[in-house]
C-alpha cells in the first residue's frame, strides 16, 4: 500500500514538473517544424484514393527511396501521427496536474513561519531592518495601515517569537497562471475535437440561380441569386460578393450576402466565399430566328437552348457544340490579356467545323457581346460564379474562449505579477525590531521600486 502511494507520488511529481513541460514543448516544437521541412498530406485526402496516389507519386519522385521510410514513420502526415499526439496528450496531463497544484496554492493564503521567514530573508535581494523604541503592537499597527494604504491585503499572525505579517498586492493575478493553463487545455482539446465534430463541404461552384443541396443536412439547399465583382484597372478582382438564399424543403428561409472575411450563418451552418470565376452563357439564333440547340462539352452538359461554361485561371478553356450546325465553339479565358490600355480579362472565341481543325471564326471579346458565325448569331453573356465553402465547427467558440483566457492570463501574470511582502515585528525591553522582505525576482521592476518607496515611508512612520 505504502509502495503504491510512493509510486503515485513519484508519478505526480513527474507530471507536475516544469522540466517535463519544457521537454514536451521542445518535442512539440520539433514535431511541428517537420511541417515546415517536409510536405504534408493535404487535409481531406484519404489513403488509397486517386488523389493520394498522384500526390504520393510526386513525393516518391522527390524523396526517392526515403519516401517509404518517411511515410512509414508517419512524418508525411505528422498531425495524425503518434509523434504529435503523444506529446500533446502528455502536455494536457502535465498542464492539468500543474493546474491542480496551482489551484491548491492560490486558494489558500500563504502563512509564513519563523523558518520560512528566515530563509526568505537570507535569499531575497530586497530586505530591510528597522530598530526603534516602542511596542510591537504599535509598530505592527503602523506597518499594517501603511501597507493597506498601498492597496496590499494584509494578514497578521501572532507567534511566540513575534508578530508575522504577510501582505499581497494584485492578489487576484495569482489566478492568472491557472487561467492560462486552463485556457491552453481548452485550446488543445478544442483543436483535437474540432477535427471530429466539424464538417465542411468545399469547392462548391455556383453560377447565377444554380442550386446546391447540402450533403450534411439534406433538408437544406442553397441558391446563388447573384454574384458581383469589383475589378482593379487591369481587370484583377479587387473585391467580390455573392447573394445567396437558403431553402429548407424547397421554401426560402434566409437570404444573405457572403464576401471574403464576411461569412453568412444560418442554423449554425456558415457559408464562406473562397473565390469566384467567370461564367459564360452562350445562346444562338439561326437565320429564321429559331434558337440553336447547344451543348457544353463538360460533365453534365445536355443539349439545350443555352450552354453555360464555368472557367477559371487554372481551367481557362471550354467547348460548346452546336450539333445541328456541325460546329464546335472553343472559348479561352485570359484573365490578363495585354491590350493598348493595359492588361484586362478577355475571352477568345474560336469556331471549328466538326471533325476539321481549320478555323471558321476567331475573335477576342472583352465583355458580353454578340457574334455572327456562318449566318447564325450567337450571344455571349458574362457573369460570375461563386466558389463557396459550407462549414460547421462547434469547436470554434470554446477554442477561442480558451485562447482568450490564455491571452488574458499572459497579460495579467506577466504585466501585473502579484507582489508579496513579509514582515516580522519582535520586541524586547522597549526596543522593537522590524524586519521586512520582498519576495519575488530580484529585478529592477515595479515591485522593487515600490518596495523602496514603501521602506522610505516605513522609516518615517516608525
Amino acid at each position, binding site marked *: 500500500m505504502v509502495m503504491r502511494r510512493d509510486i503515485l507520488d513519484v508519478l505526480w511529481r513527474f507530471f507536475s514538473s516544469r522540466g517535463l513541460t519544457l521537454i514536451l514543448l521542445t518535442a512539440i516544437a520539433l514535431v511541428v517544424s517537420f511541417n515546415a521541412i517536409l510536405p504534408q498530406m493535404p487535409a481531406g485526402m484519404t489513403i488509397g484514393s486517386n488523389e493520394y496516389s498522384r500526390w504520393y507519386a510526386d513525393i516518391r519522385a522527390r524523396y526517392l527511396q526515403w519516401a517509404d521510410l518517411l511515410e512509414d514513420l508517419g512524418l508525411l502526415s505528422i498531425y495524425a501521427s503518434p509523434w504529435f499526439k503523444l506529446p500533446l496528450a502528455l502536455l494536457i496531463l502535465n498542464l492539468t496536474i500543474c493546474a491542480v497544484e496551482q489551484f491548491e496554492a492560490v486558494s489558500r493564503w500563504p502563512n509564513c513561519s519563523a523558518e520560512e521567514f528566515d530563509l526568505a530573508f537570507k535569499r531575497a535581494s530586497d530586505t530591510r531592518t528597522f530598530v526603534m523604541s516602542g511596542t510591537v503592537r504599535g509598530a505592527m499597527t503602523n506597518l499594517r495601515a501603511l501597507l493597506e494604504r498601498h492597496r496590499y491585503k494584509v494578514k497578521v499572525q501572532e507567534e511566540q517569537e513575534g508578530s508575522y505579517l504577510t501582505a499581497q498586492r494584485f492578489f487576484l493575478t495569482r489566478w492568472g497562471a491557472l487561467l492560462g493553463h486552463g485556457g491552453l487545455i481548452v485550446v488543445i482539446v478544442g483543436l483535437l475535437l474540432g477535427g471530429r465534430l466539424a464538417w*465542411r463541404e468545399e469547392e462548391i461552384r455556383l453560377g447565377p440561380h444554380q442550386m446546391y443541396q447540402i450533403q450534411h443536412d439534406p433538408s437544406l439547399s442553397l441558391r446563388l441569386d447573384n454574384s458581383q465583382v469589383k475589378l482593379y484597372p487591369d481587370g484583377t*478582382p479587387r473585391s467580390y460578393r455573392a447573394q445567396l438564399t437558403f431553402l429548407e424543403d424547397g421554401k426560402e428561409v434566409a437570404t444573405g450576402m457572403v464576401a471574403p472575411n464576411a461569412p453568412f450563418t444560418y442554423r449554425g451552418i456558415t457559408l*464562406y466565399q473562397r473565390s469566384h470565376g467567370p461564367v459564360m452563357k452562350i445562346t444562338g439564333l439561326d437565320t429564321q430566328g429559331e434558337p440553336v440547340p447547344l451543348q457544353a462539352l463538360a460533365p453534365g452538359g445536355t443539349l439545350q437552348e443555352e450552354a453555360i461554361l464555368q472557367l477559371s485561371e487554372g481551367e481557362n478553356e471550354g467547348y460548346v457544340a452546336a450539333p445541328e450546325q456541325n460546329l464546335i465553339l472553343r472559348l479561352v479565358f485570359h484573365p490578363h490579356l495585354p491590350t493598348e490600355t493595359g492588361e484586362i480579362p478577355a475571352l477568345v472565341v474560336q469556331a471549328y467545323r466538326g471533325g476539321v481543325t481549320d478555323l471558321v471564326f476567331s475573335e477576342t471579346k472583352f465583355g458580353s457581346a454578340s457574334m455572327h458565325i456562318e449566318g447564325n448569331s450567337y450571344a455571349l453573356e458574362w457573369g460570375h460564379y461563386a466558389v463557396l465553402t459550407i462549414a460547421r465547427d462547434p469547436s470554434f467558440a470554446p477554442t477561442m474562449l480558451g485562447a482568450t483566457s490564455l491571452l488574458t492570463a499572459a497579460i495579467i501574470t506577466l504585466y501585473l505579477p502579484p507582489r508579496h511582502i513579509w514582515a516580522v515585528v519582535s520586541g524586547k525591553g522597549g526596543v522593537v525590531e522590524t524586519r521586512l522582505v520582498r519576495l519575488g525576482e530580484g529585478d529592477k521592476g515595479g515591485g522593487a521600486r515600490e518596495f523602496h518607496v514603501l521602506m522610505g515611508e516605513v522609516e518615517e512612520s516608525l
Partner: protein
Amino acid sequence: MPDESALYFVANLILFALLLLCWTHLFRPNWLPDRMLLGTLLLFLSCQGMALLWSGLRLEPWAFAHPYLSTMFLIEATLLVYRLLERLLKQRGVGPFVLTLAFVIHAYVILFIPPPIEETLQISPFLRSPWHLLHLLSAMVAYGAYTCAGGGAIGYLMAGLLARSRFAPGLPSTQDCQMFTRRALVIGFPWLSSSLVTGALWAQLAWGSYWSWRAEEVWLLIVWLVLTMTLHARTRPGWQSRPLALLSLLGFVLALLSLPLLGQGLAPTW
C-alpha cells in the same frame, strides 16, 4: 503624389548615426551626453513613424501586409520596445547590440525589397480585414521585442567574453543583459499570443477554419512554442544565464526566418 521612400532612407541614415553614437558610448561612456543619444533615438522614431503614417494614408492600411511596410513597422516596434526597456531598466549598455540588429534589417529592406507602388499594388480581398491587420501588427510588435531579446542575448554573450576588457567600459554586466532579455521576452509574449488569436479569428472569418496548418501559422506557432519554453525555462535554476541567452537567440532567428511568410499573399487571383 510623392512617396515616402526618401523618408525611410533618411530614417536609415539617422539609425546609422544612432548606431555609431551607441558604439562610441560603449567604448567611451563619458564622451557623449545621454541627451544626444535619446534625441537621436526620438528623431529616428518620429521620422520612421511619419513615414509609416504616410504609407498608411497614401496606400491603404491593408498595404502593411507588404513585406516592405511590415518590416519597417517591425523596426519601429523594435526601437519603441528598446526605448521602453531602456527607461524601465535605466541602462543603455545593450543598445549597440539591439540597434545593430535593427540597422541590418532596416538596411536590408531598403536595399533588397522594392517599396509598394500605389499604381501596381493589388491587395487580395482576404487581406482587407482588421483582424488580419491586428494579427500582422501584433506579430511585428512581438518580433520587435524578440529583436530586443536577441540583442540582449548577444550582449550577454559579449559581456561574458569581454568581462575584464578595458576597451569597452560601457559594456553592460551579464546580469543587466539577462534582465534586459527577460523583460523583452515578457513584453513579446502577450503580443505573440494575441497575434495567434487574431490570426485564428481572421482565418475563421475568411475560410471557416481557424487553424489549417498553413506555413505562416506553423512558423508563428513554432516561434510561440520557443518563446513559451524560454519563459518557462527562465524560472528554473541553471537555465537563467547562458541557456536563456541561447534560447532567446534561437527564438529571434526563427522569428526572422518566419518574417517573409507573414507578408505573403498580397496579390489577388481570379
